[in-house]
C-alpha cells in the first residue's frame, strides 16, 4: 500500500515537477503561486533536481524562457496566477501555435481590479481561447497526478500542445492534504524523456516562428485547431494508463450520483468537493440531485458532456468568473451553446459565485438549489444569479 504523506498542496506540486525530471524551470513570483516555485528552487539548490532554475524578471520572460528552452528540446515548467497570467497572455497564444509542450500550473486568482490575491477563475477564463490544454484539479492528489500526466499528454507526438493545470489559489494551494507521492521509478516508466519533433540545433537548422501572410495564416490556424481537437482521445488514453499504474482514474468529465438524477450541479476545480457534500445533503432530503465535474476545460469535451445530460431536467452551473456584459458567465454560455440543439434539453441556471475568494460553503449550494426550484419556468428567472453579493 503506497504511503500517503501530509503536505501542503503547493509543495506536492513541486514534488511532482521534480519527479518529472524537468530541465528548465523559469518563474516569477506571484501570490499564491510562490510556495511552488520556492520549494522548486530549494529542490534545485540542494541538487535533488538537476535543472536550471531561471529567476526571471517578469512573467512575460518566464514564458519566453520556457519557449526558448522547449525549442531546443528541454522539458520546462513555470507557474503563475492572475496578473502574471495576463502579462504572459501574448506568449500563451504563440506557444500553443508553435506546439511547444510546456507545462504550467496556474494557481487561480482573481484578476485586478481591484487587486485581489484570492481565488476565483477569472484569470484562466480570460485565457480560454489561447490554445493550451486546460485541466482543473480538485484536491492535492489530483494536482500531483495531473502535473505528471500533463507532461505525458503535452509531449505525445499526437498532441504537442502546452498544458495548464489549474489549482484554486489558497483554497487548494495552501492547504495541507494527504498525497501519495509516486516513486521515481514509476514516474520514469510512465513518463519517458522528452523527444522533440523539431528542435533548434546547428546539426539541422530550421526556422520557427515564420510570419503568416493572409494567403497562408488561415490554414495554420485551422491546422492548430484540428490538432487540439485531435488530442481529446490521447488525453483520456494518458489518464487511463495512469489509472493502471496508480488506481486513480481521471476522466475528461466526471460525475457523482448522476445516474437517476433529475438535476445536477456543474463545477470546475475545488468547488467540486463541496458540491459533492451538497449533493449528499440534498439526496438526504429526497431530491434527485447529482454533480457533473468538468476536468478537461480545453479542448472542450463536447461528446462527454452531451452524454451525461440525458435525463436531466435542470442544470445548475457554478461560474467562478464574470464575462462582463455577456449573457451569462463563461461556463454557462458554453453549456447553453452545447445543449441548444439537443432534444429535451435541461433548463440551465447560472450562478456566479466564489468571486475574489468569497467562500462557497455547503449552504450556498442549497440556496442555489432552492432558487432554481423557485424560479424554474417563471418570468423571474435571471440569465445569471449573483446570490453571494450583498444587495
Amino acid at each position, binding site marked *: 500500500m503506497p504511503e500517503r504523506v501530509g503536505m501542503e498542496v503547493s509543495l506536492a506540486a513541486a514534488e511532482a515537477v521534480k519527479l518529472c525530471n524537468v530541465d528548465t524551470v523559469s518563474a516569477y513570483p506571484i501570490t499564491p503561486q510562490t510556495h511552488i516555485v520556492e520549494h522548486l528552487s530549494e529542490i534545485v539548490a540542494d541538487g535533488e533536481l538537476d535543472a*536550471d532554475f531561471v529567476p526571471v524578471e517578469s512573467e512575460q520572460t518566464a514564458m*519566453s524562457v*520556457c519557449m*526558448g528552452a522547449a525549442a531546443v*528540446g528541454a522539458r520546462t515548467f513555470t507557474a503563475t496566477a492572475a496578473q502574471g497570467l495576463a502579462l504572459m497572455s501574448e506568449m500563451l497564444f504563440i506557444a500553443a501555435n508553435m506546439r511547444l509542450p510546456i507545462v504550467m500550473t496556474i494557481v487561480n486568482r482573481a484578476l485586478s481590479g481591484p487587486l485581489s490575491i484570492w481565488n476565483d477563475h477569472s484569470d484562466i477564463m480570460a485565457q480560454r481561447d489561447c490554445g493550451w490544454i486546460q485541466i482543473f484539479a480538485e484536491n492535492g492528489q489530483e494536482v500531483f497526478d495531473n502535473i505528471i500526466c500533463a507532461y505525458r499528454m503535452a509531449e505525445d507526438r499526437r498532441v504537442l500542445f502546452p498544458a495548464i493545470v489549474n489549482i484554486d489559489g489558497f483554497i487548494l494551494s495552501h492547504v495541507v492534504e494527504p498525497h501519495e507521492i509516486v516513486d521515481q521509478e514509476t514516474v520514469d516508466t510512465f513518463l519517458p524523456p522528452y523527444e522533440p519533433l523539431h528542435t*533548434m540545433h546547428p546539426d539541422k537548422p530550421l*526556422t520557427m516562428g*515564420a*510570419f503568416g501572410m493572409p494567403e497562408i495564416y488561415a490554414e495554420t490556424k485551422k491546422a492548430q485547431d484540428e490538432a487540439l481537437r485531435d488530442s481529446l482521445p490521447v488525453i483520456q488514453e494518458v489518464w487511463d494508463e495512469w489509472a493502471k499504474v496508480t488506481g486513480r482514474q481521471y476522466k475528461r468529465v466526471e460525475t457523482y450520483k448522476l445516474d437517476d438524477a433529475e438535476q445536477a450541479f456543474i463545477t470546475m476545480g475545488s468547488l467540486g468537493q463541496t458540491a459533492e457534500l451538497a449533493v449528499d445533503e440534498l439526496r438526504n432530503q429526497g431530491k434527485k440531485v447529482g454533480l457533473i465535474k468538468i476536468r478537461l476545460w480545453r479542448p472542450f469535451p463536447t461528446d462527454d458532456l452531451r452524454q451525461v445530460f440525458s435525463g436531466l431536467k435542470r442544470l445548475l452551473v457554478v461560474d467562478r468568473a464574470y464575462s462582463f456584459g455577456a449573457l451569462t458567465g463563461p461556463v454557462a454560455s458554453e453549456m447553453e451553446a452545447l445543449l441548444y440543439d439537443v432534444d429535451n434539453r435541461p433548463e440551465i441556471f447560472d450562478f456566479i459565485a466564489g468571486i475574489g475568494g468569497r467562500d462557497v460553503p455547503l449552504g450556498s449550494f442549497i440556496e442555489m438549489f432552492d432558487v432554481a426550484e423557485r424560479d424554474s419556468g417563471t418570468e423571474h428567472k435571471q440569465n445569471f444569479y449573483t446570490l453571494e453579493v450583498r444587495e
Partner: protein
Amino acid sequence: MEKHNVFAAAMMPKFEGIASGHRACQGCAEVLAVRHTLKATGKKVVVANATGCMEIISSPLPTTSWEVPWIHTAFENAAAVASGMESGLKVLMRKGRIKESKVKAIGMGGDGGTADIGLQALSGAMERGHDMIYVCYDNEAYMNTGIQRSSDTPYGAWTTTSPPGKKSIGQVTWKKNVPEIMVAHGIPYVATACSSFLFDLEEKVKKAVATEGPSYIHVLSVCPTGWRIPAEKAISYGRLAVDTGFFPLYEVENGVYRMTYEPAVKLPVTEYLKGQGRFRHLTEKEISEIQRRTDEELEKLYLKVKMTNPQAMAAAAGLETGPCTTEHNKETCIRCRRCVKVCKDTVGVDALAMGEPEEGQKRGLPYMKDPDACIGCGTCNFVCPTDSIPMIEREGVRSIWCLDFPIRTCPQCARYYIPEKQVEWSVEKFGVDPKVFEVCPDCR
C-alpha cells in the same frame, strides 16, 4: 577604409548565414551587419530574433532565408528566448541528452526591440549571466512599421512620430546610450560596431563568442529608406557617423574601455548630417547643439578610456601598481650605454644616465634621470641592440620609459609619427618651422 590590407576582404569567412532572396530594402546596411555577424559566429549558433525588419524580410511562411537555427516569437523578448535556449542547451548537455558541443545562443533585435520594449528582457538576461550574445541592430527608428521614433532615434531626426513642425524640431531627446546601460550591468564584454567597418564588427563578434557569460554588441545599421539617403551611400554614411564622433567604435572588456578605431581626422558633424533627408530641416542652432553634445559625449568616453586603464584605476585607488609595460628590461640589457650616449650626444636631450654598478657588475644599468627633459623621440629604442627599451603606441599616446607622450597621427597616411613634446622642443630649441611637422616624413 579601415586600416586593413584591402585584400583582407577575400579572406573573410565564406559562411553565409542568411541567404540571398531576402526582402531587405536595396542598400540595407542592417542585413549586411547580420550577414557578417553570422560569418564571425559560424554555424554553431541558435538565434532568437525579435519582431522587426530582420524578421519580416527573412521569414515569410513557408519559406526562410536563415541557414542557421532561428526562432522568432514576439517583439520584446529576443533576449529572454535566447536565454531560455541557453538554459535548455546547458541542461540537456549536462544530462547527456544531447552531445556536448559549443553552441552559442544569440539574441537579435532592432533598436525598438532592444532599447524600448525589449529593455526589460535584455536587462534580466544580462543580469542573470547567461552565456549568450545580444546584438542590437540599431537603424535608429521603428523602421519595419514605417519609420516611427524610438529612444535610439538621434536628436533632431525626422521620423513619422517625431516630425519637425511649427512646434517641434523633430526628435527632442538625445539617443539613449544602451551600451552604457550594458556596461552598468557588469557584463564581461560590451562593444559598439558599424556595418561600414566589417573587420572591426567581425572581430568583436568573435570576441563575444569567445566570452563566457553575456556579451552585448550595438551595431549602427544605416537605413537608406528611413534616413532618406541614396542606397549606394549606406556604407559612406556609416563611416561618417564614426568619423564625426557621432557613433564611436569602442569595446569594454570587464569594465576596461578601449577605442577600437580612431578617425585619422575627426570631421565636424555637419559632414554626417548633411545629405540625410531626416536631418534636412535642422537649423544652424540645432546643428551646433548636436556638435556640442557629440563632443561632450566623446569626451566622457575618452575619460572612461583613461580612467579604466588598469594602471590608472590602481593609481586612483592608491594601490601599488605593477611594473609599467614600458619599463626598461633589466634582464636583456647588455649595458652598452648606447641609449645614454645617443640621447646626450646625438639628440641633445640628456635625459638618461648610467646607474651605479651592482656587486659583481662592471657597469650599472641605464635609467631615466630627467623625466621632464625626455621628449619621447624613441631614438634610444631605435639604437638599443637587444630591444630592451620597449615603446608602445596606442590611442594617440606613445609610452616609453614609463612615460606617456601624446603623439601625432599623420592626416594623410594615418600613422603615428611624432610626439607633441618633440615638436615643441624642435620649435623652441631649434626654431624649426612648425609647418614641417604637419605631415609625416614619408608623406612630406
